[in-house]
């Protein structure tokens, strides 16, 4: 297996405040990994560090190329752009300064739209799309660069159930060729669908297959919850018998 994304001993700050410390993480090609943790655990910061958007205080990031799918509200949906325009904007760096997109660039955008099953909507204004369709536009925009690893930042927020399931199928499919790392708050769905879970709270608390993470103490430490938490019951973890910690 080749690592599509490898982070070694990474530390990073946000606004001068240390957020991540000693993060070790590896996602392989063909793997669909979930990044789980409470708000403020550093999930988005980890992705931004992997993309090289923020400086590392320590450690190294190795990746062939990373495609980023930000949270949906980061995109200006009322902009007068069509679906294909939005996807093409993912190539702006590759097309180069002062140059216009050529046929090959449009074909790459259409190919990416094929992969997310939006080919028939390519002329539609982005403002007229549903939440699930918008999410797929952002995925296509990241895929257009043929990244080795796809970083998804809470793609399910605000989406209803059929939309979430369609997207999960899409991500599983994409993960057959590439690596996918998805930050999410939907723990149960992640435990069910993802190949591997990465539990993050400022650092990687634990990582492994769902079956390997049955110890409730790991989850309690990551999410800072007590032994009576709904979280443990929802994941059907064994009830802790002895008090953990002090």
């Amino acid at each position, binding site marked *: 297996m080749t690592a599509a994304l490898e982070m070694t001993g990474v530390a990073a700050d946000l606004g001068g405040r240390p957020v991540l410390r000693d993060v070790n993480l590896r996602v392989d090609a063909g793997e669909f990994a979930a990044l789980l943790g409470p708000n403020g655990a550093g999930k988005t910061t980890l992705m931004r560090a992997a993309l090289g958007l923020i400086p590392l205080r320590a450690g190294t990031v190795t990746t062939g190329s990373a495609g980023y799918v930000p949270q949906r509200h980061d995109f200006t949906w009322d*902009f007068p752009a069509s679906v294909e325009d939005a996807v093409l904007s993912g190539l*702006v760096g590759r097309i180069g300064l002062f140059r216009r997109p050529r046929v090959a660039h449009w074909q790459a955008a259409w190919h990416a739209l094929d992969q997310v099953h939006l080919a028939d909507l390519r002329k539609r204004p982005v403002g007229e799309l549903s939440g699930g369709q918008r999410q797929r536009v952002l995925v296509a925009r990241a895929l257009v660069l043929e990244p080795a690893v796809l970083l998804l930042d809470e793609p399910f927020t605000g989406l209803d159930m059929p939309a979430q399931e369609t997207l999960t199928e899409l991500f599983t499919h994409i993960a057959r060729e590439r690596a996918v790392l998805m930050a999410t708050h939907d723990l149960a769905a992640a435990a069910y669908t993802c190949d591997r879970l990465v539990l993050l709270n400022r650092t990687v608390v634990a990582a492994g297959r769902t079956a390997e993470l049955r110890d409730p103490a790991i989850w309690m430490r990551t999410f800072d919850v007590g032994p009576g938490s709904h979280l443990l019951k929802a994941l059907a973890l064994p009830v802790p018998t002895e008090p953990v910690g002090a």
Partner: protein
Amino acid sequence: MSPWQFVADLANPDLAFLPKALTIAVLSAVMCGVVGCYVVLRGMAFIGDAVAHAVFPGLAIAFLFSGSLVLGGTIAGIVTALLVSVFAQNRRLKEDSVIGIFFVAAFALGIVVISRAPGYAGSLQQFLFGSITGIPDRDLYIVGGTTIVVLLAVYLLHKEFVAVTLDREMARALGLRAFWLDLILYVLVTLAVVMAVQTIGNILVLALLVTPAATARLLTDRLAVMMLLAPAVGAGGALIGLYVSWSWDFPVGGTIVLTLTAAFLLAHLFAPRHGLIARLA
């Protein structure tokens, strides 16, 4: 006055200032229309207003020392845009507060400076509300050249401006220099505004920047169409406004602005698909 007579007046050598004013009004409306599309889509109308007011001290100083108004205004506008960009990096202050501080300060400086000029009340009114007389021939070349520069810059950097507007963070991840692109856009806004100040006036120039682009946005969901419609609306408004102002002796800046506002209201009512009438029907 009939439109035909207006054309005759335009050709009359005794009224040579009239075609000059028309040329400058139309060219600056074209520039403002194109650049205004970004201003409207990015929701930066306030910085447009700020830059428009910030050119005032430059105009005042140039006026006082008989320098080039266009050059003075451009320098003052760019200095203000720079100050706003730099001070807005401070996370404790939101950008609109920084803009609020600097554009009023610039305007105040302009008023203080121009009070030193003899007969300042008249020139003040000319700066604030525009005038079609007293435009030197040299300004025609400056405005023409600036139009070419602004349109060329937009043509070359269009996809970068779009990418930064669509998703700033992603644009940075793709290697674009968002700060520099913002600054270039501010400079383009400044240039378009300065060219328009002379005919339409300092206070009203914002209308040239925002109204045609907003009108075009109501009429289309395609950016390319919007960026052709906006300068067309602006140029049409400048032409009709000047004609009405000349015929009935209204102030030119105010008439152009009201013409553009009428176009906006018409678009709001009758736009296909999203207009008020289309939605009620």
